[in-house]
């Protein structure tokens, strides 16, 4: 696949690889799906790269491609995490990043339990995107994005209350 065609693409991808890893982790709950989603993100970003005109930062563009891939990803088996499902909960526990503090682990779990679209909104927000950018990336109106974000933040803060 075309390294020679887009010599700067792999370099940029290497620099921003963390975005893909973070989203991959948030949208899958087992290593097999994670590998597949990661491959899918690489493929989609390579395919979309010729249309990247540099109007936005590469990281914003990559975030958009990665989130869209995650939201349309066809898992080998669709496993929705249900907190009442002991198997799913233990699977999730096995799949946490290593060495997170208990509070960070709790936040991570709470975000992964959100609906997928909400997960995208809060992830973008926590990574510093403003409401205009969130609306532009997700396709929501600015007001709708703000309302949703407020609801999600309230929910997360309530869940994180000691």
């Amino acid at each position: 696949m075309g390294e020679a065609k887009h010599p700067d693409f792999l370099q940029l991808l290497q620099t921003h690889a963390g975005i893909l890893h973070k989203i991959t982790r948030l949208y899958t709950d087992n290593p097999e799906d994670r590998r597949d989603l990661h491959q899918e993100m690489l493929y989609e970003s390579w395919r979309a790269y010729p249309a990247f005109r540099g109007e936005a930062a590469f990281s914003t563009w990559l975030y958009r491609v990665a989130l869209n891939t995650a939201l349309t990803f066809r898992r080998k088996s669709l496993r929705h995490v249900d907190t009442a499902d002991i198997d799913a909960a233990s699977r999730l526990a096995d799949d946490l990043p290593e060495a997170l503090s208990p509070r960070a682990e709790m936040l991570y779990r709470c975000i992964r339990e959100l609906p997928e679209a909400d997960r995208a909104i809060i992830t973008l927000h926590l990574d510093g995107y403003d409401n205009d950018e969130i609306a532009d990336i997700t396709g929501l109106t600015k007001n709708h994005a703000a309302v949703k974000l407020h609801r999600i933040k309230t929910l997360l803060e309530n869940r994180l209350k000691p």
Partner: protein
Amino acid sequence: MEELDQLWREISEKTGRDRLSAPTAAGGFSPSSLNLMKTIRQRTRWKLYFIYLFLAAYLGAFVWLAQNWESRLVFGAMTGFALVNLWLVQRPYARMKKQDLLMSESSRAVIQHYYDCLDTMLRQENFIGALFTPPAAMLGFLFAFIEEKGSAAIVFSDWRLVSIMLVLATLLAPFGAWLTRHLNKVAFGKYLDHLKENLADLKSS
């Protein structure tokens, strides 16, 4: 809120350190996962190849196999069905190829596009399964009976042969419809629901 930001920074640092199969500057990468749009387009393309194949077979039979005007009528009708089928499949396929969105559109536009393509393909298959399978099978039997008995008039005057064709069509219609729906539901049902759910989340206010 500050705590959320702090905790998120920690999560970002830890998850960002993961190393899956990231491409190397020297080696590039080879995606091995299954892309759904590719699957849909491939499946539709195969369907088109089959339609072209059957169309050629029906035309060939019309020219070389049919001995009388009745057999020609049967193969003419089959060719007609195949042409309608081709029209039904070709149009959405062209649309799918033309509107193959890149992932850098908004999430809502991308999910809507995936949903529309998949929904069109499934509805089209259900429609073809329910409406085209029974007459195609009936016409096949009719041709065999005409070849054996000599003319359509003899076939239609024999109530047993007419009954066989009618029973076949009556049984095949619901069976064809059920089977197509069932197979599509098994293959794509969960995925379609998943897209629908995400789309609803991005639309609801």
